[in-house]
């Protein structure tokens, strides 16, 4: 069953915290498609 899961790459907003402050970037990560 594990091998049959459907995943696809999706864009997501990711929060970044540095010593200068916080900001967000758009990255790609695999997600369940259903």
């Amino acid at each position: 069953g594990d091998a049959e899961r459907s995943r696809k790459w999706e864009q997501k907003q990711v929060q970044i915290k540095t010593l200068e402050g916080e900001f967000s970037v758009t990255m790609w990560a695999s997600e369940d498609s259903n």
Partner: protein
Amino acid sequence: SKNKPGPFDWGVHIDTEKKESAPVTSFKHAPMSGHWSDVAVGMKVEVLNTDCDLPSKVFWIAQVIKIAGYRAKLRYEGFEENSSLDFWCNLCTMEVHPVGWCATIGKPLVPPKTIQHKYTNWKGFLVKRLTGAKTLPGDFYTKVVESRECKFRSGMQLEVVDKCSISSMRVAVVDEVVGGRIRLLYRDSQDEEDDFWCHMASPLIHPVGWSQLVGHKLTATADYKAASYAKTISKKLDPMDCPPDLFRKEKTVDSSHQQFQVGMKLEAIDPLNLSTVCVATVRKVLREGYLMIGIDGMETPDGSDWFCYHQTSASIFPVGFCDLNKIELTPPRNYSAPFKWLDYLKKTKSQAAPVKLFNNEIPNHGFKAGMKVEAVDLMEPHLVCVATVVRVVGRLLRVHFDGWEDTYDQWVDCEAPDLYPVGWCEMMGYPLQPPLIKASPP
């Protein structure tokens, strides 16, 4: 001793030998096999920044520059072509996080001191480097934990091949489970160290009552035999009997067509010498598609070294398979003339098992010669060793144990549950046997 090598490091071994590793997706039974498309070279992750003088743990972004099984070679972001601080780590451990993880726990990312003065605008640098890049999914570690689950529990009872007399089954109790590998103790043994290790998907283990169901020889008490037979008929198991749905399912066999028959000749991996494929004979046809196979010329008069293979097993082959694939076929012991199947069939007045009865399916497994794996030494199945796939013949793999003589090689099927991706032992906390290093003369 001062000359004793340090602990084995897969990263160093792979970098030194310049070899590829088999991808996690090739091991269907291995954790994360179905999720490994979540991982890619070039993706960014958050990891501990070890190039830092701060008293508390801080993290920085790193890029995956190479993948070997579960392990990845990482380079801190900002190092460009500088490989001086590259390091290997296991992607399935809690040392590696998706980008964004630090922000969720309120920790700022701190650049390594080697490059801390290289850029003045770290925000601009990170926006440029991270936008549009890949990272691990947020649920990656949850998937790791889920995929490691094993439903076999300590104390459960099952039937397993007798390692001392492979034509017979014995009753055993699960003692320990590590990463889907099970340590079994024979129930009738007085010796607590008389154990047997196998994977939960091994074809060597079966539920209570299986031996009598298929007609396999079983060494057990009369009470066990009577009770297990009654349980099989009534389908009512005891609470400590392993549920049958936990075991590997063999393909169902269409019994309306031609079947294997006693006396038919074939080629088979010798279960007691896995580096050889031998001339063999069907000695007994059991129920549910199971066969007792004897290796010609090696058999004991009482048949105690016959071995049970399912007829769909990828360890038995039609006559001529070795010749066709340029594999050395081991003739019967003391066979004096050069071995020729036609002469042998005539001499033994026997027929070859028809080709169509064998498993001819070749999965798109992804293994290639030269790939590194972690492999169980099936002669000492508690040992998982550093190994290399040295030959691929359809679905059949020849596995060589690094540093050992070729005579220790093993032929195994590409779907054998005894092969694991690089980093499996580390992920499971199971000891990995490093390559044998031959002592140099003083």
